[in-house]
């Protein structure tokens, strides 16, 4: 019996890559438009753990830093101009902590001051003190409601 051989035609198989450039550029444009390089760093502070013990409050046992409208300070009742804060705040605290390293710093801010004024002082307080290994152990940022409560507990009229 005769065998017929059919000559196979080779079909070239190719992936069509003509539109790859379009898709790639479309993806790039999408990511460029929707991606954001957001700020991902900042100052942190931990709030005290909730316990039922009422702390004993002694007004003279803390360093009182009061930020006024405009950015000036009252440091333990003494006025300090905004321009002096960078040079004088930390040395004062360092000197005070030498006598009593456990003294907490209480950072109060006038409601009419700006957030920027408060952050400026808080940033300086968070800057490590270079000399003698002295460190601010506690920085407390009481809210207006907490301050009112403390004044009430101390029996001080505002």
């Amino acid at each position: 019996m005769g065998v017929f051989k059919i000559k196979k035609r080779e079909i070239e198989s190719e992936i069509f890559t003509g539109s790859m450039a379009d898709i790639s550029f479309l993806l790039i444009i999408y990511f460029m438009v929707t991606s954001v390089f957001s700020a991902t760093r900042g100052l942190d502070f931990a709030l005290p753990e909730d316990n039922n013990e009422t702390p004993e409050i002694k007004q003279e046992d803390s360093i009182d830093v009061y930020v006024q409208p405009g950015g000036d300070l009252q440091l333990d009742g003494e006025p300090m101009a905004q321009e002096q804060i960078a040079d004088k705040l930390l040395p004062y605290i360092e000197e005070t902590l030498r006598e009593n390293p456990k003294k907490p710093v209480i950072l109060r801010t006038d409601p009419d001051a700006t957030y920027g004024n408060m952050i400026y002082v808080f940033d300086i307080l968070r800057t490590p003190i270079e000399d003698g290994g002295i460190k601010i152990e506690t920085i407390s940022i009481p809210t207006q409601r907490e301050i009112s409560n403390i004044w009430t507990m101390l029996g001080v009229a505002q």
Partner: protein
Amino acid sequence: MAVIRGREKKSGGEIFTASMADIVFLLIVFFVLTYNTEVDRTQVDLPETWVRKNIPKKAAVISISSPETGEIIRVSTGEEMSLPVSTNEEVITFASTVVAQDPAKEFIIKADEGVHYEKVDAVLDALKQSKVKIIFLLSEQRTVDG
């Protein structure tokens, strides 16, 4: 004077595009890796600080817009787009709900540096009442020239 005109030979000007695909894919990979969906797009002038710490990616966000835009407070769980709130009670409700789901959840305060502290104080108070443990105050890097 006779001018001899030679037949100009056209030289084909081509831009080398063989590496274009590599560059394009490199850019795509870069954007895929660095892609970050921002849950809060409030435009604020952040205060500048020397001390800055890394903020966890999925922290809840409370933003306060500038005084020019009405010091609007917006809240986000860190996974969904932020929504405006109008009262301090709403901030407390939001923070309490988030803390109930995850007691260790960090919160970010993203406020314009010109915002009255009274507004920030109210937010801080709401977070304290909601038993939030760690708060981050978002800032830009302070530089020597200010």
